[in-house]
């Protein structure tokens, strides 16, 4: 079946457009000609207005639509399966896309790696720090370290919680999620050394009923501040608000959903990255293979404080933000995981690649990754 699909596409491509065959290699891959039309394909794992990850991406992508000569085509609700290969191939073959942005973690390996090998004239960029120089050069990654904003969440939560028992609804135990949980804990412990973070994994990026169950279970266990790392935090935030506990947001500003209990939230500032992309595309430059950032280069931010944040919390969180902008490290050893093993000996830079492989929950986190 695959064979037929590809051959049909190839026929379409060669038949319909000598244009595509002739201009694409000349234009983009040789990186020379400014004003070459860029057809940018963006693929999302969920709906573009999910109050979370996808929305944060989609809002920022708008910047790229304002660049002359850039046409943006988007597809949403594409699962992290072979479906993403099909979506991207149809963008390349049918729409003539020469730059593809895959915005979900699971798109990368093996789907985007294989596509980058198969279409060397098309540029691929993926929203996670997974690229390394053994991979095709027309592939790359861009990422912002949201754990820095979760650290600030933790500082504010630690001073806004009467009991110091914080709850975290998490999707899957991948390094990015674990780093957010650990940073949230370290933020809280920096102001309240007795604070704990109880984590419940739902196992899925989007599973509203189980997220609501997890949020209820955390409140029943005595947590009085909830936060989460799932694709659409709306359910967790609304459940926290209806149970009368405070909450911290994730991915987008959820302040309006919790007028009584919202403290602050961790948000990406994708617009910084996409504005950079837009400027480079306007000049006809090729995008870098690796773009990473955090507070120091304005790639993450915290949501405006809500009614749940106490004055001390606001002051401490503002100070924490200022320190992160100066590069103050979050992971300062020695730190043990919650099994008692020493996992971080010395002080880690906030962008140390070792942290990208995080596979533990620190002491103070109640929960298990298996």
């Amino acid at each position: 079946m695959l064979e037929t699909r590809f051959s049909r596409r190839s026929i379409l491509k060669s038949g319909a457009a000598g244009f595509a065959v002739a201009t694409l290699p000349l234009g983009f891959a040789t990186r020379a000609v400014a004003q070459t039309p860029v057809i940018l394909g963006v693929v999302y794992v969920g709906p573009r207005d999910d109050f979370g990850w996808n929305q944060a991406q989609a809002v920022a992508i708008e910047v790229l639509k304002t660049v002359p000569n850039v046409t943006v085509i988007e597809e949403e609700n594409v699962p992290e399966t072979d479906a993403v290969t099909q979506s991207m191939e149809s963008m390349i073959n049918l729409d003539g896309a020469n730059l593809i942005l895959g915005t979900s973690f699971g798109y990368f390996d093996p789907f985007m790696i294989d596509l980058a090998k198969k279409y060397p004239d098309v540029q691929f960029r993926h929203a996670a720090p997974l690229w390394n120089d053994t991979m095709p050069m027309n592939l790359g990654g861009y990422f912002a370290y949201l754990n820095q904003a979760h650290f600030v969440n933790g500082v504010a939560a630690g001073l806004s919680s009467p009991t110091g028992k914080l709850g975290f609804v998490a999707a899957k135990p991948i390094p990015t999620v674990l780093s957010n949980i650990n940073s949230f804990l370290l933020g809280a412990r920096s102001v309240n050394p007795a604070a704990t973070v109880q984590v419940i994994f739902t196992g899925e990026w989007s599973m509203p009923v189980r997220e609501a169950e997890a949020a209820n279970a955390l409140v029943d266990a005595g947590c009085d501040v909830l936060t989460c790392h799932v694709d659409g935090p709306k359910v967790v935030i609304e459940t926290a608000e209806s149970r009368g506990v405070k909450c911290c947001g994730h991915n987008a500003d959820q302040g309006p959903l919790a007028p009584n209990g919202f403290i602050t939230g961790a948000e990406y500032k994708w617009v910084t990255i996409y504005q950079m992309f837009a400027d480079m595309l306007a000049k006809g430059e090729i995008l870098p293979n690796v773009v990473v950032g955090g507070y120091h280069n304005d790639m993450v931010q915290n949501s405006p404080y809500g009614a749940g944040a106490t004055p001390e919390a606001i002051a401490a969180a503002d100070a924490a933000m200022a320190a992160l902008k100066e590069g103050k490290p979050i992971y300062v050893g020695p730190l043990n995981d919650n099994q008692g093993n020493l996992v971080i000996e010395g002080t880690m830079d906030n962008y140390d690649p070792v942290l990208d492989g995080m596979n533990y929950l620190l002491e103070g986190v109640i929960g298990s990754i298996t």
Partner: protein
Amino acid sequence: MTAGMLTTILIAMLGGAIRVSTPFMFVALGETITEKSGRINLGLEGNLVLGAMVAYGVSYETGQPWLGVLCAGFSGVFLGLIHGLICSLPRVNDIAVGIAMMTFGIGVAFFFGKPYIQPSAPRLESLPLGNWSDNPALRSALEINPLFFVGIIMAAVIWWMLANTRPGVILRMVGDSEPSARAMGVNPIKVRVLATAAGGFMAGVGGAFLSLSYPGSWNEGLSSGQGLMAVALVIFARWNPLRCILAALLFGAAGAIGPALQSVGISQGYYFFNAAPYILTLFIMIASARSGASAAVAPGELSIVK
């Protein structure tokens, strides 16, 4: 495991049973009506999702959540009628049409549901029945939505009607033996179309519960297959409306096990515990399908039985 942990888990399971069971209950009751007429409508997942979207949209636009529930029911009637009418054509397989209707319902809901993902709509108020207790977890578990009681009453009414009333007997006759129904002068097609529409109504109302009560917001991952599970529950409940209630409660309670265990610190193996409802259903299906009793009560005209 200490007594306190056990209490926490039991309260969580009680709360989960009450919170999570209602959509299963409505879909399973609807499917019972449809299957009693000799048709299988696998498309109720579509009704559930469309119902959730319609209820949320109507509640947001009008500020009347109960009007949303009603409209959700009629969106289910719409899908049910399409299914019923297509399946009335000669040589049409109801299972295949059901799968098509599921995709159709979900697609329509996603298409029209885009503008309603962001806004917050007025929800259905729950009844605070736990105010006598000073345990906050128990009070929260006993915040019960009126639709939960509506579902239980509907189950009793359907059970009574099937056993004791003329429409109930006609429905069962059409489902068990089409020739007998024809001999009695009953038009089986008409009965089946009506039964599928009624089943669709119930599933639509179940969807309204998802978006207007628990978890209480509309988004595209809302149902994640609950409509399909509910159809399986009907077989487990052996086409008995009262057992549908039990099955739905059991399924809801099992779903609460995963998060509850993690919340008391038993966090190893959460993937396994999160799968508890499905594992449970699988075992119950095996157990109940092996007993001859299940086959004996299955409506004789069902395409999977014939």
